[in-house]
Structures are given as C-alpha cells and as structure tokens.
C-alpha cells in the first residue's frame, strides 16, 4: 500500500495492515463464537463459552492422565514413522534406482497411495491385536507410501549429468554415493518424510479413536461419550496446535534466494 511506504520502519510496523486485518478477523470470530455460545440458540455446550474452553484447557494441562496419553500417542507415532520410514526408504531406493523396477512398481505405489488407509484397520487388529501394535501398524502403513514415492522419485530424478560429472573426475563408488547420490536425494527424501509424518499422525490418531483405551484419540472419543464438550474442544486445540508446530518445525527451509540475473 503506497501510503505506508513513506513511513519510518517503526511506525510502519505499528500499523502493518496485514496484521491489523488478521487481528480484526480473529477478534471478530472470537466475539461471534462467544455470542453464539451465550445465545442459547444451539443445544447446550455444542458451542461452549470460551471461558469454559479455556478452563478445560487449563484442567487438561495439569491432568497427569492427559500427559500419559500424549506420551502413548507420541511413542506410537514415532514407532510408526520408524517402521514405515525405513520400509519406505528401502523400497524407494530399490525401486527408484533401477529403471526396470521403477517401471514395474512405481505406478502401483502411486495409484495405491491416495486410498483411505484407515479401512485397513480391521486387518491390523486381526494381525496385531487391540493394543498399541495395531495403531502403530496403521500409522506405518499410512506413512510408507509418501516416503517410498518421494524417495523413488528422488532417486530417479537425479540429473544424469551430475552422475557424469562424478564419473568424469573418476570418483570411487563410495565417493559417488556420499558426495553425489546422498546430497542429491536429501531434499526429496526430507519432503517425503514430512508428508509421511503428517499422515502417520492422522492414521495413528484415527485408529486410536476407533478402538483403543489409550492415547489422544482415545481421550477425544472419551470426551465425546461423556459429552464433555469443553474438554473435547480443549483436546482438539492441543492436537491441532501440536500438528501445526510439527509442520512448522519441519517445513521446507527457504534456502537460497532466487537468481536475479538472466
């Protein structure tokens, strides 16, 4: 906006229009929510007052049961990522590294990837029981696909000229792997791992909501069954905040600025 360009940095920051608008929108939403909560238009507590939600959040934070369930979920997701990640990386490297294998198996992986994995849950329960193992298996199956696909694509898409450069300088196989193959693949693999983490969280948590007696998913369903809406909102806020934080931490780093000359 032209009007703000002439101001000194300090004043410009103070009345940054973007942040003003954001705050205004948030404030409006919160006010609307609170009005709706107190209006009595909706069934009691479907939209609880913000006060109740904040109170529930507070109670949650000091409740040891919450933290132990959080721990359960975190460990399930971590194990799911470990299993699905290793399997995905290995598969991706194998499939992406060979032209033949790539043409044979990459398409099935690609077409199977956007299917709802949660429907496999009954199978997981049969195979692994109703304990944490079935949830971990669910998370692992979910994250296997994006990791395998990104890794395979990363292998396949290493520019052949970069391999030629290494060979023209007579690099040994070990040097080719350490100095060319691995660095070339870091970006796509990291991207796959990030996606994998996202779907591992979803897969594990959904499995917990379906059949479990531990974990954050279980807590959500429990508050649903008790119709403790402020608690459900509180747990959901925690879950979404954690998901956003994880996404932000592992977000793609905006490495180098764009080239500015032809």
């Amino acid at each position, binding site marked *: *906006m032209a009007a703000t360009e002439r101001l000194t940095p300090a004043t410009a920051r103070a009345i940054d*229009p*973007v*942040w003003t*608008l*954001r705050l205004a*929108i948030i404030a409006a939403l919160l006010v609307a929510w609170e009005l709706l909560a107190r209006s009595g238009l909706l069934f009691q507590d*479907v939209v609880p007052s913000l006060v109740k939600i904040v109170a529930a959040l507070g109670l949650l934070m000091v409740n040891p049961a919450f933290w132990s369930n959080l721990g359960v979920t975190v460990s399930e997701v971590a194990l799911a990522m470990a299993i699905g990640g290793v399997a995905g990386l290995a598969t991706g490297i194998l499939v992406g590294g060979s032209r*033949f*294998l*790539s*043409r*044979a*198996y990459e*398409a*099935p992986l690609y*077409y*199977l990837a*956007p*299917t*709802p994995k*949660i*429907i*496999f*849950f*009954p*199978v997981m*329960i*049969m*195979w692994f029981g109703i304990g944490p193992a079935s949830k971990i298996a669910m998370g692992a199956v979910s994250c296997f696909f994006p990791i395998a696909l990104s890794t395979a694509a990363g292998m396949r898409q290493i520019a052949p000229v970069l391999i030629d450069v290494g060979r023209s300088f007579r690099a040994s196989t070990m040097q080719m792997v350490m100095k060319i193959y691995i660095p070339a693949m870091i970006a796509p693999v990291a991207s796959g791992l990030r996606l994998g983490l*996202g779907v591992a*969280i*979803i897969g594990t*948590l*959904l499995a917990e*909501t*379906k059949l479990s007696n531990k974990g954050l*998913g279980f807590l*959500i*369903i429990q*508050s*649903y069954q008790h*119709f403790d*809406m402020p608690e*459900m*909102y509180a747990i*959901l806020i925690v*879950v*979404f905040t954690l*998901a*956003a934080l994880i*996404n932000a931490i592992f977000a793609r780093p905006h490495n180098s600025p764009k080239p500015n000359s032809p």
Partner: protein
Amino acid sequence: MALVKRLRAVLPAMTGLATIVGAFAVLEGLLRAGLINRYIVPLPSEVLFSFERVVMEEHISQRFAQTLGEAFAAGLLAAIAGFLVGVLLYRNRLLERAVGVWVAAFAAAPLVLAYPLFLVIFGRSSLTIVMLGFLSGIAPVIMKTLEGLHAVRPVLLDVGRSFKLRQGQIFWKVLFPAAVPTIFVGIRLGLIFALINVVGLEFLINFGGLGQLINELAERYDMPGTYAAITFVILISVVIFAGLERVEQWLRPSA
C-alpha cells in the same frame, strides 16, 4: 522384431502384476500348509469367492451410490466454494496476504481428527460426512485457484486491456481460461481428499455406504468378506484417481 519390442515395453508392468499375483499365490500356499493362522489371514481364494457374495447380498450398488453421492456432493461444494474464496482472495490482495498462510495451515491440518465434534454438531448422518469431506477438500481448491490466477502471465492481461475489454470480460475471457488447468488440479485434489475422508469416515462412524460395509463385515468377523470389501474400495479409488488424471491430461494437452 516389432513384437519383441512390444513385449519388452509391457514387461515391467507385467512384472508388477505378476509379483502381486505371485505373492497371493505364495500366501495361499502358506495358509493351506498351515504355516500361517487361517483365522488371522483368510485364503486369498476364499476372499475372491466372497466377492460375489458381498456384491449380491450387501446391496453393493446402493452403498456404492451412497458413498459416491456423498463424495461428489462434498467435492462439488468444495470446488465451488473453494473457487469463489480463491477468486475473492485474488481480488483483494490485502485479504490474501492476511489470510493466505492460514489457508495453507488449514490445508495441512488433520481436520478429520475432529470428526467426533462433527458427530455432536451434525449427528451420525450423511451431513457430518459431507461436511468433513467438504472441509477437507476446500483448501487445495483455494490454493490452486490462487496459484493459477497468479501464474497468468501479465502480458496476456495486457493483450486484453489493449483490446479495451472490461474488467469482467478480462476475468472470464483471459484470466479464467488461462488459470483453468491449475484450478482443475486443485479440484482433482479436493475431490480425492473428499473421497478419502468420506470413505474413512463412513468406516469410523459406521454410517453410510462402502466404508460402513467394511466396518459391518469386520464386526461380524466375516474376514473373507471384510478383505473383499476393502479390496473393492481400493479398486474403486484407484479407478477414480486414474480417471481424474485422464481428464486432467485432456484439459492440458501441452503439459
């Protein structure tokens, strides 16, 4: 010579298929030999036979229609609302700068985890399913609409203005057609997310079409039937996904 070439071209695909079939054959063998517990994993041949039973007895066409109907409704709503929001944000740069990051965060958020909340608000009904499907599908449409509109090369707009077109004409005759391929990518993504979430939800809340079928069969301990139903759903989603890709290719012959 040409025949050999043809065979060589399909060899990889056939290997893929052969591996899958072969794996099932090995599984069948291991099960019949008693090396794997038949209660936990049903015979692949049994699963194959139960396909017919499942289709006949479980009102497959009705369930299929319900699932697709819900997915389509969710997808259509997401496409329309997403497009409108995308255009709104494109027109109002300040709003876009303020809210753009939120849309991206919304797209990455695991919305489906909030389904118990939707159960409370909308009840155990198709509405819950369609609402969640709609919300999961809308973010990619918004983002791709914005991306497509922004990516239109400014020179094309200059051409429009040089021919004295009005604002509305420039939008519908220049901006929109140029952005359509990208917008369609967003709609395809939105439809896929909607479908995935619809089926998943049907399973989770035990209501609806195919997703519910899987849940029911599992609760009845009809393992062959459950596997058959799962396979059926996978096949359908693969077909829909591939079909949407074809349509997108048709829309973008140059890409």
